[in-house]
């Protein structure tokens, strides 16, 4: 045999060898469009995109865009299933008879933890990044911690004790048991105090759709109220109310349902402390007016329903509620009414607003026996609704009853305020036994832990009353 075949053989050998040695490099494919953690947290701008993504996920989740307010409205005495309702889920919500296997509230658990996961990813991502400025890190972390606190606030109020997850390591967090709500609240406070200290006076972007210092204070005021720390609740709400350059109560113009234009729920209204920016239509307002229209009606129980609670002359009776006559036989939510106005949305879903701060302060002041100033705050809200002043001579207890009532009316359909208040104040059993006789059981105060969660994490225990 002649060696002139040698070149071929060598070429083949060299080819194969070089193939095998460059294997590893050839297979290192980096995504171009899909960002890896490294890419997402490479600089201030990219990190801010993830913060934007977090708000987006919140504003577009079922729980936070509409289902939480709807569901808590059904659980309490605000809403009832519409006469043409096809949603079995809402019927179960209304009857306070939830099945842990497929309750509508199950997504509140998973979507909240998904938000917490994103917040944790931001906190970890910016901390590990060499390319982000210190100011950028502080801002991103503070916004993430604000959202994390917000999500835990609803988790702890809806479900009671919940697992406390503050990192993205699923191998550990998958087995966490439920943590006492005291500890969860401690984490909420830590997060909000950090946000309050780190966020700037101004909103990071145009409008009021991301957290600033005042947003953190407003949320802190609410949390302190829930923790019965009246002094701090009053302090935070006072600070927000005092910032009159930024926040003022909106005017309630119009005198009847037909021509009333509510400017409170407008995008960037003066009263708004935090709203969801929105152009996708998945919002409470959109749902209230469109596809869910037939699914719910405002509770019109002549004695215990929401409608019965409005005093004569209260503008909110037709500004916040669309009367049955105008809405095809059943009253509807009417806080939002300009949905789908192309090309720009004029209404944003309200998350935190000034009226609540007045009501927080009124309650805190009454609790601290400052009835006079408490009534002043209450009257601010009443006057706007076209109602007369309450007497400053009321007792502390009378004042508190009025605070509860004003919260019910002013904040109706907003974030289940009614449901959470009844629970917080310990009035739930009493009110619900009257509103839904025969249906109510005390254990319904907390929603069930989703059944799959208990199956997947044997360290989780179910709430009483659900098996």
């Amino acid at each position, binding site marked *: 045999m002649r060696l002139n075949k040698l070149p071929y053989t060598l070429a083949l050998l060299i080819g194969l060898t070089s193939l095998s040695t460059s*294997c590893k490099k050839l297979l290192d494919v980096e995504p171009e469009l*899909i960002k890896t953690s490294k890419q997402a947290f490479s600089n201030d701008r990219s990190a801010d995109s993830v913060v934007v993504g977090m708000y987006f996920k919140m504003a577009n989740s079922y729980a936070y865009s509409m289902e939480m307010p709807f569901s808590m409205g059904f659980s309490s005495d605000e809403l009832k299933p519409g006469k043409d309702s096809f949603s079995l889920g809402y019927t179960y919500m209304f009857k306070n008879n939830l099945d842990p296997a497929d309750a509508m509230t199950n997504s509140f658990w998973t979507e909240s933890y998904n938000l917490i996961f994103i917040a944790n990813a931001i906190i970890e991502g910016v901390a590990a990044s060499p390319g982000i400025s210190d100011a950028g890190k502080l801002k991103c972390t503070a916004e993430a911690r604000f959202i994390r606190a917000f999500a835990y606030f609803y988790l702890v109020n809806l479900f009671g004790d919940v697992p406390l997850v503050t990192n993205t390591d699923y191998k550990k967090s998958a087995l966490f048991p439920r943590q006492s709500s005291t500890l969860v609240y401690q984490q909420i406070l830590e997060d909000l105090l950090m946000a309050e200290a780190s966020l700037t006076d101004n909103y990071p972007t145009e409008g009021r759709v991301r957290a600033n210092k005042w947003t953190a204070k407003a949320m802190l005021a609410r949390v302190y109220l829930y923790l019965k720390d009246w002094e701090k609740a009053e302090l935070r709400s006072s600070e927000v109310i005092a910032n009159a350059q930024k926040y003022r109560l909106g005017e309630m113009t119009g005198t009847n349902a037909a021509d009333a234009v509510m400017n409170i729920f407008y995008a960037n209204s003066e009263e708004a402390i935090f709203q969801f920016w929105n152009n996708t239509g998945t919002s409470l307002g959109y749902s209230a007016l469109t596809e869910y229209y037939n699914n719910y009606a405002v509770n019109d129980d002549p004695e215990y329903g929401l409608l019965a609670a409005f005093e004569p002359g209260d503008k909110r009776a037709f500004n916040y509620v669309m009367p049955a006559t105008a809405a095809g036989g059943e009253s509807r939510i009417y806080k939002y009414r300009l949905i789908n106005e192309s*090309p720009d949305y004029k209404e944003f879903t309200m998350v935190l607003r000034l009226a609540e701060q007045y009501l927080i302060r009124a309650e805190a002041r009454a609790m601290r026996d400052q009835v006079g100033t408490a009534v002043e705050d209450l009257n601010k809200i009443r006057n706007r609704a076209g109602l007369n002043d309450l007497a400053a001579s009321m007792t502390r207890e009378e004042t508190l009853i009025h605070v509860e009532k004003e919260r019910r009316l002013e904040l109706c359909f907003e974030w289940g305020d009614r449901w959470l208040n009844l629970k917080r104040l310990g009035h739930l059993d009493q009110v619900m036994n009257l509103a839904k006789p025969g249906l109510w059981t005390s254990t319904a105060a907390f929603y069930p832990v989703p059944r799959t969660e208990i199956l*997947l994490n044997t360290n989780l225990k179910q709430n009483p009353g659900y098996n």
Partner: protein
Amino acid sequence: MTKPNQTDQHLFNFLKLLHGANLRLILTIACLAGVCSSGFAQQVTLVQKNATLKQIFTAIQKQTGYDVVFSSNDLYRSEKINVDFVNVGLEAVLQQVLKDLPLTYVLENKTIIVQKKKKVKEQDKDPDFTNNDGLTGTIKGENGPLSGVSVVLKKTGKAYRSAEDGSFYIAALADDEVLMFSYIGYEKLELRAKGLVSPVSVRLKQVSSVLEEVHVLAYGEKTSKRNSTGSTVGISSAILEKSTMADPLAALQGRAAGVLVTMNSGLPGAQVKIQIRGVNTLNLDGRARNPLYIVDGVPFVSSSMATLSNIGQTYGSSFDSPFKSIDPASIANIEILKDADATAIYGARAANGVVLITTKRGKGGKLSVNADIVHTLAKVPNFVDMMNTEEYLNMRRQAALNSGVEITESSYPDLTKWSQTKYTNWQKAFFGKTASTSNAELNLSGGTDQIRFMLGGGYRDEKTVYNYKDGLKIANGRLNLDYNSKDQKLTAAMSLNYASDRNSAIALDPGSFYNLPPNFSLYNEDGSLNWTINNPMAASLKTMMTKSKNFNSNLLIGYKVLPDLNIKASLGYNDIQVDQTMLNPIASINPSSYNPMGNASFVNNENKSFTFEPHADYVFRTGKSTFNALIGGTYIDNKSDNLLLSAFRFDDDTKLHDISAAGAVDTSQTQNQYRFLSAFTRVGYNYNSEYILNFTLRRDGSSRFAPASRFGNFYSIGAAWIFTQQPWLKDNFSFLSFGKLRGSYGLTGNDNVGDFAYYVNYMKTYSKYQNVGLYPTNLFNPGYQWEKNRKMELALELGFMEDQLNFTVNYYRNRSGNQLVSYPLPGQTGQSSVVENLDALVQNSGWEFTLNATVLNKTDFKWKLDANLTFAGNKLLEFPNLASSSYSNTYEIGKSLNLQWGFDYLGINPENGKVMVRDIDGNGTINTDDFIALGSSLPSFYGGFNNSFSYKRFELGVFFSFKKGSLGSAVFLDPGSAINNQPRLLLNRWQVPGQVTDMLAYTTDRTESYYFNSSRAALYDNSYIRLSNVSLSYDFSKKQAGTIGMKNLHLYVLANNLLTISKYPGLDPESGISMPLLRTLTLGLKTTF
């Protein structure tokens, strides 16, 4: 060249070993020592400069004991060359010596005959070469010269082989001798020597015997069924021609054992689902369950690349088959590789089997023009038997009465406002039409001995059975070129295929309107659409256009380094583009919905794939042994881009195409990339076509896994024993003409988890929150690896009566472990799952029977029978913590993966007509926790049988396919709660206490119908036997065709899906209530000019 020193000698030997030469030598020695027991060595040592041929051949004669006959004396004396041989095999020496001379040699029973090279063509006859009583000639097959054809003289037993150019030479030939020509894949031919004049031109015909059929293996390797160790099924173009669907894979239904083909829809361009030996993965993504498809050596995208699904599509997701870009008429053969031996060469991608599609190539010779023209008429064969107006109205009224619901104008317009007598059969009204499909195909082929080409084009125009909308149009063109150098050493094959299609047909699925009330009117009196209930005419106002462009190309270059050593490189490039437009005008939206506005979606998807595969194969024959070896590598780079624009809030229907007129636009863009790199080898050994052994090894790397877990090894071993080679068997069981026992075992993989899945992926928000945001979509887990499928197979193949009856039985057992699943996690982790390997084990096992028989084989009348039958099942053997996983309502240990879940149905309570289902957990409430596994949607057996009869020039084929024992849900029964018509099945409902029946009472209570429809009561046995195909053809004789100026003319009539026997109450047992397979009648002609 000087003689190498000792060290060089080792290197030299080593290099020779790489060529296989030394291996050959060693084996030659072994063979000589052990088998041949020849007194001389077949190796030559000779080092000499300027040696004459005489000197060389004298030395050879001395060293090997072979006689040498030289036909050209002048060269014998004059030609001088340098030789340097140390222990080199005889044939290698001869090849080297004669390499640059116009000489060739034949080894004939201890004689070396050296003769002048013969040109192939008759006109190049060499006048010098008529000087003896020998015979020269060339052997050709259908695609040109055949080398290595065995020529045996019957009387003397002398054997010859044809040279590379197909030429052969027989030194001495008695007049009463008979020449027997045999070659793999070709019919044996016997010629009487008497009267033969040199040069003889011998033409071998490709065989029809099942055993001799050539099966294409990976990387161009071929085997006959006789010699294969693996499990493969070949589908010829003759079978493909009998399907009238655009997707060529449709033709496979019922034709191959172990291959379950399901047609989910009869809509134009719909995709056919193919499952080879069951579902191996727990992954629910269809892509992870698909076989690997290779078209002309290039991997092919196997699932629909469309983003938008059909308007109103209720069942079956893949309506846009990527395979429709391959014209069935252009396919020469589809090969399905099933077991480890056949598939392991594709390693990590072969867990679900492999489908090889090979297109037709030019045959060379004079220019021939082939035309195929086909026209098909199609109709929906079956409709759901729905209630008439009286029955319908009665049901609605009775349901309201039974449930105590007040009948008002607003809630019961059908009972109060609409005509009480009007009757429309909506199924017939909407899809009762006869659809026509025209298909024309023209190709030119021809060439010289060195270049052959086929240039072809086709056009298909498929209409729908709907009374509106265009249909599917496909145009395709292709060019296949083959080249070989004069010495046959350099070969090149190129394939270019381009197809473009537009599908506007699929606007509506029957599932969305078959149940319209019979007294409904589509239009109000003023001509506007009636929106009392969802109006299907709205869909006809919408536009859904899917356009695909597919470019597939492949270049294969080969070089014959040694007569039996080929190196080849294959380059492939595939580019598929799918563009979609969906327009929903205001006119198509219910005006009572809140602020109705138009919207539109636009899709641009592209997938580009580049493949590079170098490989080398080597064949070595010695004595009765044949070795072959294949070594090679694969590099694949696949990139895909997907863009979706969703435009909302158009205020004017005429502006829908103009994105800038939209009130808002959302954009979604994704890019993916996949790279794959591997090295493989396959070594085969065949002893006397009696013992055959194959070994495959492959190492794969996939970019879908994190760097640390990127590579995996896959292998297989296959062995076969053809026991009928045993003399005692031959003597005692002469009716058994062929018997083979074979088995294989091996490991293949599945890497179908999606690209970049091991990174934490940050997705862009589909809409804005002031700006576009990013959010993480998964948890970080870089540790996962391939799914591993261990395949085992045992088979017995028998041939009776000279292979007129062939029977094969296979048993296979595939166990797929290391399952790649979305491992469920508690929501508190932030995600519901993480991609993870799970210690779950899935077993697919089954028996496959194949029968091919020539029942009658007379001159004028032939009858052939082909049948196959598969008993297959799968089982989940292991799944740790199944109960607590999200798969707990999908899978159950010890049961099939294709479970149907639902309530345990206890019947209709004869007292009150209520549906009774079992409260499994006994907690007093009936919900999904009470679901149990009711049965499998996998058939217990399936198959098909074909009879083909030929009488003179007529041929008749009758083909049945069948499937037994799977469960399918038919039609959702709603006995009166909604404004929907119902099947007449419901007339059997419960009416009076004490009545025993299986149909629930008329009621508006939806929990009743929920219990019923979610239980065994609503599942039907969708077993069927289908007369899939009847074909009748007439082949005109050359003479008859010649009278009208044609070379060939072939006329045929096909009828598909003529009859389906099934108890299933839906439209079709396979498609449920989506568009069923159509009944078609086809007239076609094939001609050659």
